[in-house]
Every structure is written in C-alpha cells, then in structure tokens.
C-alpha cells in the first residue's frame, strides 16, 4: 500500500472498526463536519452519519460521562480529545466512572471505550497545549494507557483498543501525525499490552515511548557509529507496563535508561524504575537513569522549550556515560 500518514492510519483503523461493528462510534469536538483537528475522522460522518460521528458541544466532563453511559449499555464509543489536555476537565468521569465503576459495581458493567487524541510537547504550543497526561492518569485503577508512535503501530493498536472491553486512554503525539510508512494491505492488529522491541542490542536497554522513540532512534544512529549496541524498547503500553519484555532485556543488558517526555517528577519513568527496583534490582549493573522533561510547565519560547524536553544528544551522552561506568 502507498505510504500512509499516521493520522490516516488512525483514520483507517476507525473506519475499519466502524465498518466491522455498528456499535462503534466516535464523539468529540469537531470530529464530524470539520473532520477532526488532525483529520483523523475526515469525512467519516458522511459515510456513517451524524450520530456515529457525533460533534459535541465543548463539555468534556459530560460528553465523557455520556460515552461511559453508552458503553455501559452496549455501545463502543471512541472519544476524541481534540487535545488530550482538555480531558483534565473530564478527570472525574475518567477516574471515577471509566476507571473504577466496573470494580465498584462488582462486575455489573463493563466499559469498552477509547479516549484518544494528541498529547505531548509540540512546537511552541504553550503550557496548556503541551501536556503529557499519561503521568496524571497513570495512578487511576481500571484504565489501560497506550501510546502509539508509528503509522503501523498506530493503526494496529487503535484497532485493538477499540476491541478491548476496557477503557483505554490512547495517546497520539501532536508532532507525529505526519509520519509516513508503508502499511500492509491486509488487516492487522497490534496487541495493546506488549512492548515493541525496536532494535535488539546487548549494551543497554533504552525504554521509551511516543515521540521520544524517534529521539532515541536518532541517538542510536550516532551510538551505532561509535560502536555501541543499545536495545531500544517502545513501551507501547504505559499501563500496565509489559515487564516480561523489559525484564528479558534487562537480563541481557543489565543497564537501563528510560527516555520519556513526561516531567521527571512522578512521570512514567518513576513507576518503571520503582517496578524494576521491585523485580530485578539484582540484575542492574548501574542505577536506572531517567531522562525526562524538566519539572516545569512547557515554556513558549522555542529555545526554552527545547531545553525542556530530552534531546537526542543527551541520550547519546547518557548511554556513553553509563557504558563507561565500571561495574
């Protein structure tokens, strides 16, 4: 198949699932007539009608709750957060009802829904539009959290997320929508609970996800030239973390660097490090290193912004430094 943009890969996923299952529908701000701020639902309302591609008023808490009620009664909603940050307004519905209701109801209801949209630091979008909500939501029980990073995995993961019977927060990255890739002509799914080994290596395990995967791969190019052999793992599932894959890698490399776009404090890396500490402390030849965004709201100024997030150069340096450590 011709090269597909990531936003189109997502659109294909939605289109295929809506075609396959009539209970699947999309709702959110400007998903219908406008086609979605990042064109992920472009023209779908013409194909499926206004109820299945529902333009909502700007009322995040309530339309999220509405989707939950629809999911409880048999539909499979996909919420588009025009920007995932806006879902801060829906935190109560997401945490209490999407996350906890199944348990609290003793299994009476299940809530098959996907909440998807762009997160992350873009190009000078300002603090509120540059949030990394995965950190804020990771402690909520009952949610699955997934981050896609390539057109291939975006499509396959989104299809799996839509079929999952649990609420899935599905993070896209505002700067990755225009990535291009050849996609298979046949239908495929990518499991949402498995990390992806992007590059096998033996020196050090680089754990990352979303846009930082690409920063890591940029760093790897340099590292390869310099004779290093890092293993790169895209977490894909931010909750739960796929420790099978990670653990196997650590047994091989004994060194771990987590590269994330979250702020350092209580980011995704914090939980990963704590879990590694729980599970394979003795395997480590060096303390796990976390390369995270600075603990600050994202500044608008371009230079400050670039200092805020992790750059490939820092990853190169960190790997070299870690490899230089005497064990």
């Amino acid at each position, binding site marked *: 198949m011709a090269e597909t943009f990531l936003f189109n890969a997502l659109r294909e996923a939605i289109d295929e699932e809506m075609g396959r299952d*009539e209970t699947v529908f999309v709702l959110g701000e400007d998903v219908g007539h406008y086609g979605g701020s990042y064109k992920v639902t472009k023209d779908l309302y013409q194909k499926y009608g206004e109820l299945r591609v529902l333009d909502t008023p700007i009322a995040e808490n309530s339309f999220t709750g509405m989707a939950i009620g*629809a999911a409880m*009664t048999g539909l499979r909603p996909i919420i588009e957060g025009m920007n995932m940050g806006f879902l801060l307004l829906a935190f109560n519905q997401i945490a209490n009802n999407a996350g906890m209701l199944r348990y*609290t109801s003793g299994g009476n209801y299940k809530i098959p829904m996907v909440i998807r949209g762009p997160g992350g630091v873009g190009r000078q979008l300002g603090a509120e539009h540059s949030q990394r909500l995965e950190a804020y939501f990771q402690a909520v029980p009952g949610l699955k959290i997934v981050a896609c990073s390539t057109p291939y995995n975006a499509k396959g993961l989104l299809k799996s997320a839509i079929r999952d019977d649990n609420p899935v927060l599905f993070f896209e990255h505002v700067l990755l929508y225009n990535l291009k890739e050849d996609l298979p002509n046949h239908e495929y799914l990518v499991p949402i609970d498995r990390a992806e080994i992007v590059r096998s290596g033996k020196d050090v395990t680089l754990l990352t996800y979303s846009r930082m995967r690409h920063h890591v791969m940029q760093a790897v190019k340099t590292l390869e030239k310099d004779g290093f052999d890092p293993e790169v793992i895209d977490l894909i599932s931010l909750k739960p973390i796929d420790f099978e894959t990670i653990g196997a890698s650590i047994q091989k490399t004994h060194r771990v660097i987590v590269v994330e776009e979250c702020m350092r404090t209580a980011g995704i890396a914090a939980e990963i490090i704590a879990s590694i500490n729980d599970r394979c402390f003795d395997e480590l030849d060096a303390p796990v290193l976390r390369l995270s965004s600075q603990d600050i709201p994202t500044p608008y100024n371009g230079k400050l912004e670039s200092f805020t997030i992790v750059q490939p150069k820092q990853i190169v340096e960190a790997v070299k430094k870690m490899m230089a450590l005497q064990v």
Partner: protein
Amino acid sequence: MVQERTLPMFQAASAQISAEEGLRLFEDMVLGRYFEDRCAEMYYRGKMFGFVHLYNGQEAVSSGVIKSLRPDDYVCSTYRDHVHALSAGVPARNVMAELFGKETGCSRGRGGSMHLFSSEHNFLGGFAFIGEGIPVALGAAFQSKYRRDALGQNDADQVAACFFGDGTTNNGQFFECLNMAALWKLPIIFVVENNKWAIGMAHERSTSQPEIYRKAGVFGIPGVEVDGMDVLAVHAAAQTAIARARAGEGPTLIECLTYRFRGHSLADPDEMRSKEEKQAWQARDPLSKFEAYLLEQKLAGEPELKAIKQKIQDTVDEAVKFAEESPDPSPDELHRYVFAEE
C-alpha cells in the same frame, strides 16, 4: 430565611388510577419506607458502615417515576440510591446484602450504600459524587436513540430516568447535559428531588434562582413543577414525560418538591433544619397521604393495605436474614472486576 414555595396543586381526580396501579405504587412506597427504617436500625447496630443516605419522605418520587417506566428503561441514581434501586426492581435482599458488604449484594459487596448497581435491572447505578450520574444517564439515553436512529432498531425506545438533588443543579454537569439532551432530543427525564437542602446548605443560599424547573426553559426543555409528596402528581408528570421521550420528542425536567425526613446521612447531626420546617413537611408524609387517598377513593380497604405492609415487613425481614447469612466476598477475588474478564 428559608422561604416556602407553595406546592403546586394536583387534581387527584384527574389521575384516574386503577386499584391495581394504586396498590402497586403503595407497595413500592411501603417497601422504600420500611427498607430505609431497617437500614437505620442495622447501621446503629453496626451491620453497615460508611455514609448511608436514607430516602424517607421522598418515596413518592421514586415510586411515582420509576413505577411508570418499563423494566427495560434505565434508572440512574445518586448516593441516596437504595429506594431507587428497589423501585427499579432490584430485590431487597440483594440491596440489603450490598449494604452488609456481602458477595450476594447487587454490587457483590464491592460497592456499598453509595454504589448500588444492577445491570440485570438496567439500574445504572448509585453515584457517590454529585452530578456524575447525569452524563451517564444521558449516555444510556443516547444509546437508545443511537439504536433507533443510527442502527434502525425500531423497538429501541427505552427511556432513561435520572435522579438528583437540588444542590446538584448548581453543578456544571447538570447544565451541560440539559443542553445535549435537548440538542439531540434524547429520551431522558431529569428528575430533581428538591428537598430544600444539600447537607447543611439551604437551597436558597446556594442558588440564585430556586425554582429549578424554570431552568429547563432556556434549553428548550419542558420544565414541570410537581408536589413531590403526592405520588399521583409525580406519576402523572412522569407519564407525560416518558411518553414524550419515548415518542422521540426529547427530554423533560421534573422538579419534585419534597423533603427528607432524616438527616443528610446517618452521620449527620441534622442541626440546620428547624423543627417547624420538619414538622410542616412531616405532615405531608407521602405514604400516609396516599394511604388515605386509596381508602377514600375506595381503591383499597384497610385489610388489603395491612396485608401489603405485612408482606413488605416480611420481605425486609427476609432481606436482613439473607444479608446476615450471606458470605463475605472471597479475599482471593480482591483483584477481580478491575478489568473485564476475557
């Protein structure tokens, strides 16, 4: 400071209720009342814990609305949810067992008083945070419309009834949902149980416009003010609203003027409400009022009503016994139900 609104008059004669229907309503109200009285007893005896919010005094609302619904319609409640669950058909024993935290409870002992659920009865749940049930009910109504209009299922005409209090109508979710319900003509009935108080906050101190039913108008929704102590009045208003919703004409907001006969929860010292106020409303007890009506209209005789009371007494006794004897959930299942099973 707390002003009295005149309760709207309802011409009981216009109700044209059958004896059967009357007894059905009466039985449901008695069940609500007796069940709650027993809860208070059990709470003080240490059989149930946490925040327990009883419904005494408001029975006409639950019975009047829910008993007008079909079994396949949806009901959505708050933390004050026992009686709504009962009216919706959740067996008293399973509600009581839930309050005891037992595996046989309607939420398998995981939920407790503020989190009653029963998918079998389309009871969408008790919601412990105010207002958060409104969007959920809206979702059930949306689902109904979706099936009918997007999927062409002509028999998808289920209505959702959503209950909440006066205090909750100051919360954004209330307004957001009124708008969406009206915009998409969703089959939902918003039932405000205006019992004049939100814990210790008098309704008039929390809202700039105490007549809640008037707020529906600016969304293009019919707003109805009803004597919430008169089950026939509630019943009539509910029937109209349900018919409208079922016909695809959209939502209705029904403001029921009512009163709770007990404190906010069993932990509330209930020191804010004046004795006079309580007495005035106690005099409007919806249960006595309806009982008198049934007798007066000769829709039932004393023995019949007595038999119903006895039956309900037995039901509640049995519910307690069932709850007591039921097992706790197994600790082995502590992590079950976090995620949907495969």
